[in-house]
């Protein structure tokens, strides 16, 4: 009984400590922060310190992370180990250090209930985390990406992990040739990405909601290169139609599993993805199909046909567009032609996506109606152009008629004024 009582009291004591600790932090929200006062006046603040840091604005004090007593302006008391002062954590301890709060759902609920609390767990599944555990001190820890004292939520444009800033943040390490050489990793990924279709869309066009930054494909806390088998799935999260067509295709099935073909990247690359054009498919000099398919094989012939289908439509579409411009310039009715061209354009865009079925018949299901629409648009444009000319001739004829009338009137008047002989 005595033993049970003893154990129970220890349990209650521990429980109260936990509650106290939790309460304390929340109370500190409005509490003193003598650390900041002294460090400020001594001009001894961390280099990256910003007063807009999310922890500071949430009312946390330096001591909430670094320990110690923030109410005392006496250095010995404030920074005494007795008061729990930990100072600057060692690099290898940083994930656990941040995780004291960020892995504690109950605690985080008080500040950001929507934020996940498994980042540390995820981190240790990442290459960074695995290497850190092995004692590698070069790898990224929380502060490498989030900074230590100017942390902001990812939606804040000032944040180092705001979508537009992510590529540059990753590039701090991944662009360091000396560091990357140690791991046999390329250091030109950022350069490639910046000029890629994704990079241009994100960094130039500022498409923060659509274009992917590094973390959209690699994950963030659990960052790893997508596995060979998951590349298609990763690209497929945004490129859904391409994914569905590819997965259902024979090529998609043949490429599954362990082989030299890694889904989308085999043709499109990974970091330097270029905006595709019709010459990618086919057997021409720029065609990617001919990297694997040789003259005479089925794939070669199919690629040739697909290219032909796309070219037929796009050539006709382009000439219809030129005619549309002419109709517009002549001031004739271009609206219905414009709408026809929108339909032809839609067929063309869809046909280009259907390329991922690798079937010329499927592509033709879209190009053939597209060609018909484009032809109709051209016909209508020709009618408008000829109508314009008819009007001009009409104007000419009207001018001549009026001229004749004037001459006739003139002669008549002249005759009237002449005295009878």
């Amino acid at each position, binding site marked *: 009984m005595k033993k049970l009582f003893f154990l129970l009291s220890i349990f209650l004591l521990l429980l109260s400590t936990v509650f106290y600790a939790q309460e304390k932090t929340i109370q500190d929200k409005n509490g003193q922060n003598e650390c900041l006062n002294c460090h400020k006046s001594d001009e001894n603040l961390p280099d990256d310190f910003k007063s807009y840091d999310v922890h500071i604005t949430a009312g946390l004090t330096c001591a909430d992370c670094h320990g110690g007593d923030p109410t005392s302006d006496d250095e010995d008391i404030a920074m005494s180990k007795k008061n729990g002062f930990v100072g600057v954590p060692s690099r290898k301890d940083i994930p656990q250090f941040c995780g004291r709060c960020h892995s504690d759902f109950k605690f985080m609920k008080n500040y950001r209930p929507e934020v996940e609390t498994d980042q540390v767990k995820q981190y240790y599944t990442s290459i960074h985390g695995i290497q850190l555990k092995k004692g590698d001190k070069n790898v990224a820890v929380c502060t490498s990406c989030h900074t230590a004292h100017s942390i902001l939520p990812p939606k804040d444009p000032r944040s180092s992990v705001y979508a537009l800033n992510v590529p540059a943040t990753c590039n701090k390490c991944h662009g360091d040739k000396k560091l990357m050489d140690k791991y046999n990793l390329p250091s030109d990924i950022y350069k490639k990405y910046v000029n890629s279709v994704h990079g241009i*869309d994100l960094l130039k066009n500022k498409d923060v*909601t659509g274009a992917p930054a590094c973390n959209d494909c690699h994950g963030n806390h659990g960052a790893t290169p997508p596995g060979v088998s998951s590349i298609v799935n990763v690209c497929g999260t945004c490129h859904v139609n391409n994914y569905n067509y590819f997965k259902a295709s024979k090529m998609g099935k043949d490429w599954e599993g362990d082989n030299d073909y890694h889904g989308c990247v085999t043709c499109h690359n990974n970091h330097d993805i270029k905006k595709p054009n019709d010459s990618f498919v086919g057997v021409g000099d720029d065609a990617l199909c001919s990297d694997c398919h040789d003259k005479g094989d089925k794939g070669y012939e199919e690629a040739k046909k697909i290219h032909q289908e796309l070219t037929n439509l796009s050539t006709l579409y382009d000439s219809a567009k030129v005619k549309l411009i002419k109709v517009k310039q002549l001031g004739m009715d*271009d609206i219905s032609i414009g709408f026809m061209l*929108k339909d032809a354009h839609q067929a063309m865009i*869809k046909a280009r996506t259907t390329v991922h079925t690798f079937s010329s018949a499927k592509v033709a299901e879209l190009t053939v109606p597209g060609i018909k629409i484009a032809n109709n648009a051209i016909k209508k444009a020709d009618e408008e152009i000829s109508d314009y000319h008819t009007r001009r001739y009409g104007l000419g*004829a009207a001018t001549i008629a009026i001229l004749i009338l004037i001459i*006739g009137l003139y002669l008549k008047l002249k005759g009237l004024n002449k005295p009878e002989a």
Partner: protein
Amino acid sequence: MSQTRRKFINTILGIGGLGSLGAILYPLVSYLIPPKITEAKVNSVKAGKADKFKDNSYKIIKFGREPVILIKTVNGNFKALSATCTHLQCIVQYRKDLKEIWCACHNGLYDLNGKNISGPPPRPLKQYDVKIVKDEIIITR
């Protein structure tokens, strides 16, 4: 004035007069019976009767040179938005099953306020105003 001369002048006057009359009347008649062309620069279009429009359905309307998607939601509210997908300019549709706006080209999705919510579209769809005047649906810029 000789007989021939008078005849000649009268013929000239006849031809000139008739031609001029034609030149005046043709544009007049064409103005009164105009061909069926939509105006290019419009600020509002009529889109039919409101009570004939079924709930949870849509129509693509020609708003000058722009296609506009007019949707009647399940709650009977009208929404009009630009129908040109902000990704590669395909024409969007309303998906009755999803109750969202969908682009078939690359599976882009927008909510009923035009916000791009999934897939490749980079920007939202522009919204138009819809007014019902005496049961007539009027879409304005």
